[in-house]
């Protein structure tokens, strides 16, 4: 019926060329990372064993396992969550349910963007100035965790706000019409409908917190400790800092060991992120409105 003109054909060819060009770019971006991860896996996997995960480093950290660092990372993440999740959820409830559309709300949003954008080493300096020196926590799990909590606060706020705003307005209006107060509406209707979404945000925060190094270097994480921490005012080892230490600071390090540490750290982080993504997809499939 229609004959393709020369112009049509030219446009078609150009489109195919551009399409494959962009596809190649995508491949070039992803492929080296896949190769790198493959190398990490190839060199790191032989190092990892039950013993590697559950014993202390020995022989000036050139042998033995990573247990104190693993435990330290878990402790740092837990304390950081205790501080940032209540605060972040409160902030998100305010922004989604109460905040008027004015300059003060804009200022809060701008502060959140900046909190996420400030370099991690500046967060570290803040942690030193505020928690270690001013509040006299010393270099401790508490100081390091609070620094991490402030740094990752935007992750919780943004994820929670999004899931609260995804709850349809009609749900709230129905509840208000029954005479419920704002808080009753939030507690009985909005939060239960948003809880899985909030959880995805919390998991993402765990992943972010576990991988951060700079903010904990001077606030509570130590290169090496002979004993496990006894309380939140003790210093601790951490997996991320341990990777930095074993790959740069220790002479005579066997080549494979840092690969093992890197593999454990990256598996932890990617596992958490995959979990968060899976939860989000499950949620999207379930949604009825």
């Amino acid at each position, binding site marked *: 019926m229609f004959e393709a003109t020369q112009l049509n054909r030219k446009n078609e060819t*150009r*489109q195919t060329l551009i*399409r494959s*060009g*962009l*596809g190649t*770019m*995508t491949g070039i*971006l992803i492929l*080296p*990372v896949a190769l*790198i991860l493959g*190398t*990490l896996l190839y060199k790191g996997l032989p190092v990892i064993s039950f013993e590697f995960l559950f014993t202390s480093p020995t022989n000036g950290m050139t042998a033995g396992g990573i247990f104190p660092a693993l435990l330290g990372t878990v402790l740092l993440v837990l304390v950081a969550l205790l501080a940032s999740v209540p605060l972040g959820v*409160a*902030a*998100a*409830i305010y*922004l989604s349910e*109460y905040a008027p559309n004015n300059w003060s709300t804009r200022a*809060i949003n*701008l*502060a*959140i*963007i*900046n*909190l996420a*954008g*400030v*370099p*991690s*080493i*500046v967060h*570290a*300096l*803040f942690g030193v*100035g*505020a928690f270690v*020196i*001013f509040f006299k926590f010393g270099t401790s799990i508490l100081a390091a965790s609070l620094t991490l909590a402030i740094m990752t*606060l935007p992750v919780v*706020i943004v994820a929670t706000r999004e899931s609260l705003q995804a709850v349809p307005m009609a749900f709230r209006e129905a509840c208000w019409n029954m005479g419920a*107060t704002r*808080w*009753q509406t939030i507690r009985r209707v909005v939060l239960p409908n948003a809880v899985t979404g909030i959880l995805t945000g919390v998991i993402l925060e765990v992943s972010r917190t576990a*991988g951060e*190094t*700079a903010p904990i270097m001077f606030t509570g994480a130590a290169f090496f400790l002979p004993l496990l921490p006894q309380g939140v005012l003790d210093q601790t080892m951490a997996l*991320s*800092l341990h*990777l*930095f230490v074993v*790959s740069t600071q220790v002479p005579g390090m066997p080549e494979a060991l*840092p690969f093992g540490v890197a593999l454990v750290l*990256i598996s932890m*982080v*990617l596992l958490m*992120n*995959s979990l968060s*993504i899976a939860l989000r997809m499950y949620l999207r499939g379930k949604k009825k409105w």
Partner: protein
Amino acid sequence: MENQTVPADSGLDSGFDRLNRDWYIDKAVQVLVFIGGISAIVFIIGIFVFISKEGFGFLVGDFNFKEFFFSPNWRPTSESKETFGILALIAGTASVTGLAMLIAIPFSLGTAIFIAEFASGKTREFLKITVELLAAIPSVVWGFIGLAIMNPIIIKTFNVPVGLNVLNAGVILGLMAAPIMTSIAEDALKAVPDRYREAAEAMGATRWQVIYKVVLPAAKNGLLGAVLLGVGRGFGETMAVLMATGHSINIPTSVFDSVRALTATIAAELGETAAGSSHYQALFTIGIFLFIITFIINLAADLIVRGIRKG
């Protein structure tokens, strides 16, 4: 309401009491969540106040504007005369971030266009998840990759003595920043209403013509915001540049020169300084500088992205 004086045993009373209580709880919660909301502002101000407080002694004492910004000599521990010039450190940060952006901007914009406009169904979903996972790799792991994988590759390929240099850190930083820029750019492309595309397609435009003539101009601000956030991210990155640049003070003349970044200097030296010394305070002053620059970048990105929503 507060002054209700109804006998304690009447049925009315408990009803009013409950309403009263609910009202008070509601107000209390409103105050609590408001505190949560303004905490972000408090923290941002707190960060500025506390790093300024620690850096204050240097700013009013040894600080010399001309030396600080225009001298390439960073010799904070010199016996004879300490100099605090950050020009070489700025050059280090700028060269690495610049190379990273040369790599990351075209690739992430290309990938974003491919994901948002060409890919569909399973491919699209797969690419989106991959990009999200790549963005999650911790910076210390990237630094380790630069050190243990890129370093020998660069030495072998280019036959240079040291593989920890601008090239190494720039590539690492580019790979790091690209996934983040890709997802923000993809969001910006997706924010362009479908009716724009449909209108253009109805006029007989091919997919690429639609993208080039309609989608890209409409998403311009969002894409610029993505690029700016990528720059901010590269500029503030610490662990990866500490481990992959070679960490030696240099104004680079080629990509094979080792350099040292602003962020990495703080990370490497803060542990060795005595609290309150000029060196310690000078490191906090670099922190103030970093804070102000990233604040401006983020503010600009926010204003630009907001521009499209209004327009």
